């Protein structure tokens, strides 16, 4: 039965000794060409002008100032969360529950904003941001605690706690935190201006949150490449046993990963609420916590890579909306297309770390 696949990997991939600089640039280009190519096929099959479709998907959103600011607004939470997750994933700590930490950031920060509704002080905003971050941090601390103390698998606990967090927010907004003047509809009051992140460009939604994201990318970059902690995180991820011999405490790194990723997800949550939404709603995230997992890997777990991946991902969402508006492409197609884009990006990414060589998998002999 092992013969079945013999013909298949005639060319096999083998790891490069070092990441190839040439392919770092080339692989996304190949991926995009392949995506465009398959886009042409799909859109033609659906009876749409394929070039117009691709234009509305990828270019048109960038032709207006508003489009660009919205791209940044959409990418901000993805990048903030993605950077945090990437740090954890490097250390093999699997935080799948950023959605919950994001939500808890919104709950804690938003709750603070509602409490301070009548305080006219410039201190309100920092307080809101800090408590939001702490909210995410706290929600991330629970799986860390369960992992280090009870050895409970963090994939399961963090995922399950996401559902719990979303239901908590739902309860608060349907119950105690309803706008008293809102006819019992499930929405909080609109935050006072003192709790809102300042807008950077007038007539847009671009706010200070985006600056946080850029700052976080820079800090994380320095952390991962220039500090001992970053080194430890990377070593643990690459060779856990070696790390143990070297005396790195695994539990410490689990805590660190969860606190960083939880805190950043929390910051993303409160930045979204006090930056773009301006009030608490029953649901504040269209799945950012899960999308950010893709962003983290698409960015090769590197802070700068995450920045680019976040932008690409955001563009694919905004492009999808745009394609619905401009050419009536159903949302299902945009999802399908987004999936294909990701498949190609992920598959081509391999060329950065591996190269083709001729040999048979089964025998291991080189046929070059």
């Amino acid at each position, binding site marked *: 039965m092992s013969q079945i*696949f013999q013909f298949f990997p005639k060319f096999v*991939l083998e790891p490069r000794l070092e990441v190839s600089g040439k392919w770092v640039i080339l692989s996304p280009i190949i991926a995009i060409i392949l995506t465009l190519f398959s886009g042409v096929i799909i859109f033609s099959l659906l009876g749409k002008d394929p070039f117009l479709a691709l234009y509305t998907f990828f270019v048109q959103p960038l032709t207006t100032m508003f489009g660009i600011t919205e791209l940044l607004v959409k990418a901000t939470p993805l990048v903030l969360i993605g950077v945090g997750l990437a740090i954890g994933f490097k250390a093999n700590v699997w935080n799948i529950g950023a959605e919950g930490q994001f939500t808890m950031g919104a709950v804690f920060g938003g709750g603070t904003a509602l409490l301070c509704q009548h305080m006219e002080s410039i201190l309100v905003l920092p307080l809101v941001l800090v408590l939001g971050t702490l909210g995410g941090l706290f929600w991330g601390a629970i799986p860390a605690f*369960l992992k280090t103390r009870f050895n409970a698998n963090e994939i399961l606990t963090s995922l*399950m706690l996401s559902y719990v967090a979303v239901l908590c927010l739902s309860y608060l907004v349907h119950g105690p935190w309803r706008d008293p003047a809102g006819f019992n509809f499930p929405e909080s009051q609109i935050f006072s201006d003192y709790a809102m992140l300042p807008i950077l460009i007038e007539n847009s939604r671009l706010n200070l949150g985006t600056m946080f994201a850029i700052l976080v990318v820079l800090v994380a970059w320095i952390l991962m490449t220039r500090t001992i902690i970053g080194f430890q995180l990377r070593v643990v991820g690459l060779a856990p046993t070696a790390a143990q011999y070297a005396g790195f405490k695994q539990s410490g790194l689990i805590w660190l990963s969860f606190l960083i990723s939880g805190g950043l997800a929390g910051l993303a949550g409160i930045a979204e609420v006090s930056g773009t939404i301006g009030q608490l709603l029953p649901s504040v995230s269209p799945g950012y916590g899960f999308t950010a997992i893709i962003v983290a890997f698409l960015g090769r777990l590197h802070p700068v890579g995450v920045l680019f991946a976040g932008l690409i991902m955001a563009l694919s969402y905004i492009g999808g909306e745009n394609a619905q508006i401009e050419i009536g492409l159903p949302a299902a197609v945009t999802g399908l297309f987004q999936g294909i884009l990701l498949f190609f990006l992920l598959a081509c990414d*391999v060329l950065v770390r591996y190269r083709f060589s001729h040999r048979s998998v089964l025998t291991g002999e080189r046929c070059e």
Partner: protein
Amino acid sequence: MDLLPVALTIITASTPLLLAATGELVTEKAGVLNLGVEGMMLVGAIAAFAAAVSTGSGLIAILVGAFSGVAVAAIFAVLTLTCLANQVATGLALTIFGVGLSALVGSNFVGISLEPLPQLNIGVLSTIPILGDLLFGHDVLVYLSFLMILLVGYFLSKTRSGLILRAVGESHDSAHALGYSVLTVRYLAVLFGGFMSGLAGSYLSLVYTPLWAENMTAGRGWIALALVVFGTWRAGRIAFGAYLFGAITILQLHVQGWGINIASQFMTMLPYLATVIVLVFISSDKMKIRINAPQSIGKVFYPPR
């Protein structure tokens, strides 16, 4: 209150979880983490529904559903095993893809009704009071879910092929050194995972709620994934987990129906919290977890020189 119908409801609620988790167990035991269960289930659901509508045959529908799951799993397999793409990200992308694909195909099937699969009537057995209904009054997929988890449990622990599969998941380098084809084993394991997810999806659109609606899995694929971890990669515990989750989901609905004064959001949380709490108890025995968790899960395999 009569407990029998409650038990029957629990079985229906647990079956899709068990089916999908069984497949993912095999996939993960071979060392591959496929987070695309939700997407594969959706594709299975629409394919089975479409087949049932156009052919009228339950059996064909189930097969079409299952093999559509295999087809999308094959995309994942090629990307992660041959192209060595990251498994976590590819799995998530597979879900996005599956949601889109199923919605696109399904747009013509919205609002169509379907007769549910007939219940198996095993002769006189089905007429035994209570026991007859409880044990013998189900559709074929419920029995299949039990059969499959038993077979998979047996396969993994007692057979030579199962041993090879576990070896591949444990240490692909050693397995390769011993002369086993890591890729072949993993391909088959991933495709089996797709098969079972496809079955789970078919169950949703043919039996559970015989209709098609976009995103009708509503997160069940994620629960199935969590159950594999919850069950510490052991068949028996996974079955227990699926039924625990199903039971709490159903019982909280009953408690609400009695008119209890607790906000419904907290009741809806119960299954999630319960799984976490039970996992904490199960996990305290560190050795057991370490024995069962496949060590090279999610890691990329390339044959060494």
